[in-house]
């Protein structure tokens, strides 16, 4: 199997926030923490585009590189996860992440940060699969149930695709060929571009 990836089709996203709601509900994400959110570019101007943003589970994840306690790991399927028992809530990953994925619940007075929380691709974390402990710390482990992330499966317009990169890129390719426009995939260059390749640049958005 190829790597697990997210792909957001800006041509299709209608900013319904269904993915945000699905994520919140599936993982019981606390108030103040948003693992996924919808960002609208050029809001109110004709040609505006909306994109659903969460952790992209980067090939060369900057969060992994900067973590001082090395609490991040990558699974065989390419999902970037972390161990909350080790996280010290320093916030380095938040500064390093190009997508603003790491979230920090308030853990006390004076803005004290709790342990980092982020999208897990609905793959749980380093606890027994589908256990109470895993659910409490990381949320649902849908991959271990043979399911895909709730946000992608719940998307009403199928703008947000999630799963095996070979398959979702095939689906997207077929779509682009049918409609004849909108081939730019937002965030893929940043998340999955080769780090040693200086030519890898994020695509210029909102052209179509």
């Amino acid at each position, binding site marked *: *199997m190829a790597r697990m990836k997210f792909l957001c089709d800006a041509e299709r996203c209608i900013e319904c926030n269904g993915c945000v709601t699905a994520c919140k509900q599936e993982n019981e994400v606390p108030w103040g923490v948003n693992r996924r959110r919808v960002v609208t570019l050029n809001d109110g101007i004709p040609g505006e585009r909306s994109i659903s943003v969460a952790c992209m589970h980067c090939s060369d994840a900057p969060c992994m590189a900067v973590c*001082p*306690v*090395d*609490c*991040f*790991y990558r*699974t*065989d*399927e390419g999902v970037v*996860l*972390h*161990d909350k*028992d*080790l996280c010290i809530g320093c916030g380095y990953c938040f500064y390093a992440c190009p997508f603003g994925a790491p979230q920090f619940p308030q853990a006390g007075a004076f803005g004290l940060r709790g342990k980092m929380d982020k999208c897990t691709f609905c*793959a*749980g*974390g*380093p*606890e*027994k*699969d*589908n256990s109470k402990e895993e659910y409490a710390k990381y949320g649902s*482990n849908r*991959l*271990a*149930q*043979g*399911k*895909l992330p709730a946000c*992608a*499966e719940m998307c009403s317009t*199928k703008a947000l*695709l*999630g*799963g*095996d990169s070979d*398959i*979702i890129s095939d*689906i997207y390719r*077929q*779509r682009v060929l*049918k409609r004849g426009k909108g081939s730019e995939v937002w965030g893929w260059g940043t998340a999955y571009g080769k780090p040693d390749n200086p030519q890898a640049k994020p695509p210029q958005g909102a052209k179509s």
Partner: protein
Amino acid sequence: MRTRFGLLFAALVAAVLVSGCGEREQVVVYKQGKYQGKPDSKPWDNDPGSALYTTSKWTRGDKTGWETALRSRNQSQNEYTRAE
């Protein structure tokens, strides 16, 4: 012979007692660039029947079966194949 056995026994008891006084590292020693947390299990090392509303089927530990199940589930995101 008896004295030697006694000495050996005393040395063994002393070694066991002294080992209790050993000082172990109380904090995690981090190795830069290496994951320091708990190991995670593989998603296919589960019984799919234990989850609610699961359509995917595979046997525990069958990686290929899990991948096939997930691939077919992935195709449900392609409405062109569903509509045509």
